[in-house]
């Protein structure tokens, strides 16, 4: 127990000496170092360690690294944005064509059914709607699904724009 306390005490003293060496080196670097002679041998050795740590063998940053990196990343990002924009537009056009194709593929019976159903709904406004009133034919369900998709996409995009500072 006593040995553990001694170790802790030694470690604390050592940490204090290390940090004092850091402070003296930083102050010395700013004031032309008038403190070196005053350091104890213990702190002095740590000051030498701190000096070595302040000058690690680092590979130099290439000339124009910032300009080249920024140009490359912005160019790549610009290309990606361009592709994304056109892909998005293409998909919207595709969606419209698929929708139009779906309308044409359904026969007039479905269309008339849809109109009938809408008419029934409108005429049922004053009274409580019955389940049969809102039962839409398949095309109506598809129409609602497409509207929901478009609405969800629009909401998601608006949220993304709002989120960005």
């Amino acid at each position, binding site marked *: 127990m006593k040995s553990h306390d001694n170790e802790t005490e030694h470690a604390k003293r050592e940490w204090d000496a290390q940090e004092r060496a850091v402070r003296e080196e930083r102050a010395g670097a700013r004031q032309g170092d008038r403190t070196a002679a005053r350091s104890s041998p*213990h702190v*002095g*050795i740590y000051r*030498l360690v701190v000096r070595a*740590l302040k*000058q690690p063998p680092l590979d130099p940053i290439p000339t124009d690294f910032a300009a080249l*990196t920024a140009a490359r990343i912005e160019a790549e990002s610009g290309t990606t944005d361009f592709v994304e924009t056109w892909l998005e537009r293409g998909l919207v056009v595709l969606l419209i064509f698929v929708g139009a194709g779906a309308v044409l593929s359904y026969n007039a019976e479905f269309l008339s059914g849809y109109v009938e159903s809408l008419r029934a709904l409108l005429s049922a406004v004053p009274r409580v709607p019955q389940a049969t009133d809102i039962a839409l034919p398949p095309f109506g369900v598809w129409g609602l699904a497409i509207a929901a998709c478009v609405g969800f996409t629009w909401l998601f995009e608006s949220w993304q724009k709002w989120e960005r*500072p």
Partner: protein
Amino acid sequence: MRPARLQSCPTGSCNLSGARCIDARMGPTEPPSLDHDRALVEAVLGRVPGAFETLVRDYQGLCWHIIDRMVRHPDDTRDLCQETFLRVHQYLHQYRFESALKSWIGQVAYSVARRFLERKRIPIVESTGNDGTDVLEQVPDAFDLEAASADAELAAALHAEIEALPPLQRMVLTLYHLDEVPILEIAAITGLAEGTVKSHLFRCRTRLRGRLEALIGATT
């Protein structure tokens, strides 16, 4: 040619114009403030010409030090630094100003370097071993700091010992001593507890001291 809106700020700490740069009122040695970070981030997100280059220039040193000290290879360092800034560019809209931009970019750089070392199966931290505390009691009677500092052999041996440290410890020591990043910020960058960062600093410096004393003892 750089647009007029991004001419160098008076402090030289960034390339934002005086009107946009809050640090124009501060000394050149002050770290970039949160307002400076905000102005810079908004400029990058607003795609102001030159803004992203300013961001890279402001933080390339930190990024380079973190990665270089971990991977120790100039080509890998360059590639990983570029990858870091690519990620910064992609995810900057997610930065919430909850920490300094420096810490946030440091986190990205550290995680890129760590993943690189993990892929190569290089351990980033020493699991066990001598922490050097056996030299705690050995205090020399006298020590000439300036004479020892001028000893090239001693310096070379000390640098070799620093290079032999595991990647994480090397990086923590460089951030603390060269970049003067506070312990709390190093903890934020590495995701380590503050006590763990202190422990790494303590053990490495004690180990280096032990090595230095052995060398001095051998030369005297």
